[in-house]
Structure formats: C-alpha cells, structure tokens
C-alpha cells in the first residue's frame, strides 16, 4: 500500500486543500451565498421587477461600460508606465515606482475628494476646461477618471515583474535577424506580455466595477445619468429596500463572475500557447 502511494516532496496536500476550501468558503463564498438567499425571497417575478427598470439599466450600462473602458485605458497606459519603470534607470525612478501604489493605499474617498476638487467647474483643471464646454466632474468622464485612478496599480504591478524577466537577448536576436523596432515589439515582446496584460486589465476592470468610495464624490449621482450600480444598492439599502438591494447585488455578482470566467478562459488560451 505504502509503496504505491505517489510520493511528493512537500507533503500535506489533503490538509492544505481542506484549509483552502474551508477558508474560501467562510471568507468569500458563504457571505456571497447569503446575498442570493436574501434575494431569493423575492421570487423570480419580484426579482425581475426589481431589476427591469430604466434606472437600473442605465446604472448597469454606465458601471460595466465605464469599467471596461477604464480597464482598457489602464491596460495601455499601465503597460507604458511598467515599461519605463522596468526598462530604464533615471533619477526619481524609485519615487515614481512607489507612487504607483498610492491608489492602493489611500482611502478611496480621499481620492474622490481630491479628483473632484481638481475637476469641478471651479477647480484647477475644471476651470480650464469649462470655457470649451467640457465637463468632467459630475459627468461620466469624471467617473472614468476615478476608475482609471484606482485601477492603474493592478496593471503596472502585474506587468512589471514579467517585463523585468524578459530576455533582452531575444530582442537583440530579432534585431540581428533584420526586424525593425516596431516588428520586434509586436512579434517578440508583446506576445509574451499578453497573459500578464490580460490579468492586469481584468483586475483593474473588476476593481472598477465594485468601486464606490472615489466615484460617488465626482459622479454627481444623477439617477439615469451618472449613477453607478454600487450607489444604487446603497440607495436602496437606505430606503430599507433590502430585497431590491440584494437583487441588484446578485445580478452584479453573476455578471462579474461570468465576465471573469470568460477572461480567465481567454488568458488560459494564450498561456497554453506561451508555455506548453
């Protein structure tokens, strides 16, 4: 019997898996399950009626649409920042590197207030844009800026180690084979960054969907125009509409989880190509 058992260098698979399942269950899954239990009190009909309003639909489009856009913007500019931080040595690099984490560390409300002060029609930047009729604070553009702000570290921090590990010799090889700089980036560097880029963008997107603190200050929160889903949930809670709030919450959970699964699947596909 003993001899047949597969030997592993590090023992304890059973114990660690048991712990993982119990921990995730207790900390993540059980509370979320309760959301569904609470919402189920509505029945399918009540559930449908709680969600099928213009106000919910508008908030839904705004939240997921802007989060996706923020994720993509962070993907592009986060790549640029990670590239500079990983590739070049320059005075002040450490300072810039540390400042990337600030959106992680700050209370989001502080970010919201700071951004609002800047972009409000009487703020530093807002007052410059006002003559051109561009409104940032209290408009979707303001929400987007807040979402980009809080999502940036995810992209930078997932890409940076991958960029640092890239073999410089591969780029030199591409150059000696006659590839232009752009071709080298496009054919050699970028494909190896794609898995990390997808992860970072996904994390930034997921964070943006759930973001509340920084957005409520800059959004203006006009129902149907600049009202995000998390705010709508809070509003329902304040009106003691617990079933309505949980219905919204369950819908958000299902959509977010579905999107994360889809992105994970896409990423798995690119990873297989890279490492098989």
């Amino acid at each position, binding site marked *: 019997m003993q001899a047949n058992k597969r030997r592993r260098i590090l023992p304890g698979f059973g114990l660690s898996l048991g712990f993982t399942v119990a921990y995730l269950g207790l900390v993540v899954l059980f509370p979320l399950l309760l959301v569904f239990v609470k919402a189920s009190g509505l029945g399918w009909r009540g559930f449908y009626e709680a969600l099928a309003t213009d106000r919910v639909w508008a908030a839904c489009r705004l939240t997921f649409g802007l989060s996706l856009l923020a994720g993509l913007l962070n993907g592009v500019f986060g790549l640029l920042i990670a590239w500079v931080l990983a590739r070049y040595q320059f005075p002040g690099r450490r300072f810039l590197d540390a400042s990337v984490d600030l959106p992680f560390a700050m209370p989001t409300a502080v970010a919201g207030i700071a951004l609002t002060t800047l972009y409000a029609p009487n703020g530093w930047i807002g007052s410059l844009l006002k003559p051109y009729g561009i409104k940032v604070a209290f408009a979707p553009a303001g929400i987007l800026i807040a979402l980009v702000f809080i999502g940036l570290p995810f992209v930078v921090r997932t890409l940076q180690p991958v960029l640092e590990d890239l*073999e410089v*010799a*591969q780029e*030199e*090889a*591409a*150059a*000696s*084979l*006659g*590839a*232009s700089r752009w*071709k080298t980036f496009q*054919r*050699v560097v970028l*494909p*190896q960054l794609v898995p990390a880029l997808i992860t970072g963008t996904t994390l930034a997107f997921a964070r943006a969907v759930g973001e509340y603190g920084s957005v409520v200050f800059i959004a203006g929160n006009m129902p149907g125009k600049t009202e995000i889903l998390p705010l709508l949930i809070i509003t329902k809670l304040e009106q003691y509409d617990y079933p309505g709030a949980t219905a919204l919450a369950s819908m958000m959970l299902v959509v977010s989880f579905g999107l994360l699964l889809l992105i994970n699947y896409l990423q798995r596909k690119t990873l297989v*190509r*890279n*490492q*098989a």
Partner: protein
Amino acid sequence: MSIIVKNLRRTFGTFQALRGIHLEIADTQLVALLGPSGSGKTTLLRIIGGLDFPDASHGNVVINGEDVTDSPAAERKAGFVFQHYALFNHLSVFENVAFGLDVRPPKTRPSKDAIRDRVLELLRLVQLQGLEQRLPSELSGGQRQRVALARALAIDPKVLLLDEPFGALDAKVRKDLRRWLRAFHQEIGVTTIFVTHDQQEALELADVVVVMNQGQIEQIGSPQQLYDHPATPFVYEFLGDVNKVRKPGRPELFYVRPHEVSILFAGDAKAELHAKIEHLFAAGPSARLTLRIQESRETLDADITRQQLEEMGLSEGDEVGVHLNLSPS
C-alpha cells in the same frame, strides 16, 4: 566575406573592455576568439554583430569592404547565435526559423511557399526535420542550439557569429556538436567567428585562433603555431598545460610542457634536476607524473609513455633525474 576590425576601443564606465583591437579575417575562415572571462571577446563579437558599438570615433568595423561601424544590427546581415540561444519561446521551431524572412518589408519578403521551402531546407541541414511544430521548451539543449543556428542562417548572413556556442551543453553533446559544426562550416562556407573560453575547443575547431586577454589581442595564429610558438607567457599558460621551472644557478623562468620533460634514472649524467615522484596517474594513453624538484622544492608535471613507465619500473616515492627539452623560442 572578409571582416576587418581597426583600432577598436570600448569602455564601460571606467572599465576598458577593449583597448585597441586590430583584426583581419579572410573569407570563409572559421575563427575562434579565445580568452578567459572578462577578456573582451564577447564584447568584440557583439560589436562586429552590431549589438554594441565602439567608443565614439575609436575604431571601425569593415565587413566585405563596407564600413558598417555605425549601422545597426538589423542592417548588417550578421547571423548571431546567442549563448543561451534566445529562441522566441512563444513561437514554434518553424516560426523561429522563419522569423528573419517573415519580418522583411512586403517588397523583399519571399512568398509563403518560398519561406516554407527555405525553412524546411534549413531544418534538414541542421538535422531537425519533423520538429517544426515543437516549441523551444520541448527541445533538448543541443536541438535548441541548432534551431538558433538555422534561424541565424535563414537570412543568408554574410558572417556567422556564435557566442559560446557549446557553453551550456554537457560534455558528450559538446563533442558531437563540435565535430558537426566543423563539417557544417565546410559545407556552407560562411565566414564564422565563435567565442569560447575552452582552449581545447578553439584548437580543435578553428582555422585561426585569436587569443585575447584584458581587452587586448595576445596572439593570432593557426592552432599549431599558437601551441608550438606561443608569443607571450599568457598564451603559453592558456593553451595547454605548462610548467614554470628554474634551473639551478639561472635566474630566469622556463616554460616547459609536460610532454617536454624527460624522466631519467636518478644517477643519469644527463639529469639537470633531481625530483621525487609525488603522484602517479596512469589511466590514459600516457602516464602523468607529479614531481617535487629537490633543488627548488617546486612541483613539475611530466607526461611519459606507459611503456617507459613499465620499463623503468617507476612508482610513487621514487627518486628520478629530470631533463628539460626546451623548444627554441
């Protein structure tokens, strides 16, 4: 194609990696850049390949009569094989080899079929047919090495530059590949420069060996010239085993190879020195004796035939006479 390097200097911060290199390499030669680590040999190779550049206005690189000192790697058509191969991990063997042709601008890019034919032909040449769909991570070290070679050859390079081509391989594969590369070079006839710190490899493989030390060239010559007539003590010591000994009553150091040491009976009148056998090693075609010279207490290695060993009946602890057959140099 010929390569000429003129008065080349390269400094990294305060470190002088190359201090005035002059080198002329004739068409179709197989040349070894040999030296210890830090001697500047890889830097020289990278500068020839356009991956590094000399200090401003300190040196020229001329390939086939054309001054390419300032042209970037992409324009030099120098096939470069990296020490750790630098294969594109995310591309198949086929795509790796095709890379240099694929990235050409549409005007000069061969057709898909032409690229396919060329790649398959190269893979046949390096004996990797049938592996074109594999990823680099699915290959052995020796196979990766040959993919890197095929990839470099795909662009019809004017010169082939190999950085420590066998450095990362185990002894058996090294030997096989060494023999294979020699035959391969004869077949394709492209001027080839390879970097190595292994003197055996350089002597066995190259037409011309360039011995480098501390950013300078110590000697250039055929393997035999270098072995028989080393120009400097450094070359003497770097190529093959060598003893440094003094004769009684003479101040200068003598360089003598183990096979140039004659072992005599202790009472022999021709003996210049007297020594005791400290260690005897006879597992090979010849026997290696480690001797302690009585006059100076220095150690001396000597190679003698197994036959002589038996005829003289030598064993550890015996006292013998020594004669040095110094080659005139």
